[in-house]
């Protein structure tokens, strides 16, 4: 019996749009995530000054700007280590890939750990997710961002384990690039949150 010709996988990965399907899917996901975080930031801006009772910024509560600035810097530098991981695998540097992937995951862990500490200090100042509109909108926004960073760390550690086993070759660099797109996205969201939530006073 005559078998049909096998499908050309190259066609499946590079459709008529001329772009890789996996990368396209990630960008569509990031666009939807942009809308999601846009809504959360808008909600925060609308609610931050509408609390019936304190504490909220300017009313018995202040952000720790130096501390958050260090966190922002750490996340920003994790974007650098992420692109260095991509550059390493693209030139076939397996050791560089492992080093920079692990560095990125560790910087992400420092950021999430710092956020957990910050949340604890806010609770000690009397601001919880149940306290008022400010607390609800603040913890929802930053909590969702922290959850996204945590997911990113899991992805990075998974890639690191794959790299340790030698399962990421230079021709698989798209895998690292797509994970990087997600990681850079959580970074750009924090760039916006850091400015709008922390630096711009009501």
């Amino acid at each position, binding site marked *: 019996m005559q078998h049909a010709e096998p499908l050309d996988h190259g066609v499946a990965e590079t459709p008529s749009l001329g772009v890789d399907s996996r990368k396209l899917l990630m960008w569509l996901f*990031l666009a939807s995530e942009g809308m999601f975080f846009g809504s959360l930031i808008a909600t925060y801006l609308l609610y931050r000054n509408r609390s019936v009772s304190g504490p909220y910024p300017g009313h018995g509560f202040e952000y720790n700007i130096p501390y958050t600035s260090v966190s922002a810097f750490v996340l920003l530098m994790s974007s650098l280590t992420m692109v260095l991981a991509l550059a390493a695998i693209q030139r076939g540097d397996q050791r560089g890939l492992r080093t920079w992937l692990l560095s990125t995951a560790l910087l992400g862990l420092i950021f999430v750990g710092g956020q957990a500490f910050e949340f604890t200090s806010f609770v000690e100042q009397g601001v919880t997710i149940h306290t008022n509109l400010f607390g609800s909108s603040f913890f929802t926004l930053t909590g969702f961002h922290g959850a996204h960073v945590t997911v990113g760390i899991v992805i990075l550690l998974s890639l690191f384990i794959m790299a340790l086993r030698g399962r990421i070759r230079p021709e698989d660099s798209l895998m690292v690039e797509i994970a990087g797109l997600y990681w850079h996205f959580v970074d750009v969201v924090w*760039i916006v949150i850091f400015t709008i939530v922390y630096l*711009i006073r009501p």
Partner: protein
Amino acid sequence: MTQMSPTTEHQEPAANTGGHRAHPSAGQYVKIAIILAVITAVEVTIYYIPALKPILPPILIALSITKFALVALFFMHLLFDSRFFSAIFIAGIMIAMLVFLVFLTMIRVFFT
């Protein structure tokens, strides 16, 4: 068409899709990161300058947009990849901003 390889003859020409250019080198990535770090330092510094308080929001927003653009263009490779990816991402951001403006209108922020 004679110059096209067999695997690309049914695709749009690179110029129409925005094409794919080589990504920056590790050194260029480090330079971008230094610029981002300096902008962050400027943001935090001007936050503590009382004289700038009245004009602080527009300055901080401009610096934030600059950082956002640098990460998206260089680290996320929007400057080097297909313009189609940029269009998708910008569309998402635009819809988010539109929803925000509609929301502000609904609660009569523009009618006070």
